[in-house]
């Protein structure tokens, strides 16, 4: 399983905080996980296609080309606005 987390405005728009994705022992790239999530419904398609979306694997910022595997924590979120 890959644990997928969503934060802030993205979490609210998807109405989802956490999503578990079965990867059946395969290593996937983040972009392919994203396209699986986008195919769930039109709202997810739209929200997860935003070009400013940020992504972290095991709590490190990574590009969409990064890979994920069983047991990883993947997170998607909007640009950060702290400080």
């Amino acid at each position, binding site marked *: 399983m890959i644990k997928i*987390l969503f*934060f*802030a*405005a993205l979490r*609210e728009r998807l109405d989802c905080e956490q999503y578990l994705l079965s990867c059946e022992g395969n290593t996937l790239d983040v972009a392919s996980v994203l396209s699986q999530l986008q195919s769930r419904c039109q709202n997810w398609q739209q929200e997860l296609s935003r070009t*400013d979306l940020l992504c*972290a694997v095991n*709590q*490190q*910022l990574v590009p969409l080309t990064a890979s994920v595997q069983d047991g990883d924590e993947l*997170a998607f*979120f*909007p*640009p*950060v*606005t*702290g*400080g």
Partner: protein
Amino acid sequence: MSIFVAVQSDDFCLASEYHELRRNPACGAIVTFSGLVRELHDTVLHGMTLEHYPGMTEQALNRIATDALNHWQLAAVHIIHRVGRLKPNEQIVFVGVASAHRAAAFAACEFIMDYLKNRAPFWKKEHTATGDYWVEAKASDQQALARWE
């Protein structure tokens, strides 16, 4: 060299932080920054909520502090960022840098804030007289990184 990072809902005390930074005998200069919840131009702000990504936030702040220590000769770096519901004029963030001389402390403090604004996973939601709105990231914050790259 010491790093102190905290993500907390409690307020912080500038005098206490300053006192801690002063304790290092190598310290000849201290620069501090504090960021506050400010009013809006177009509507009344009742407050804001700071959301974060627990775990990743602390790692990101430690990484930024470590990068600052690798760039400049510093005695100490303290970063405190609050989360949860905050009222107007409350303190949000504290950065304190101690070094032998002022130039390194000034530069490192700006470096830390510039990277915190772009790399640390915090999000602000404003509660206003006209509704609740997530704050949009500013291009100027991202452009501020250019001077360090």
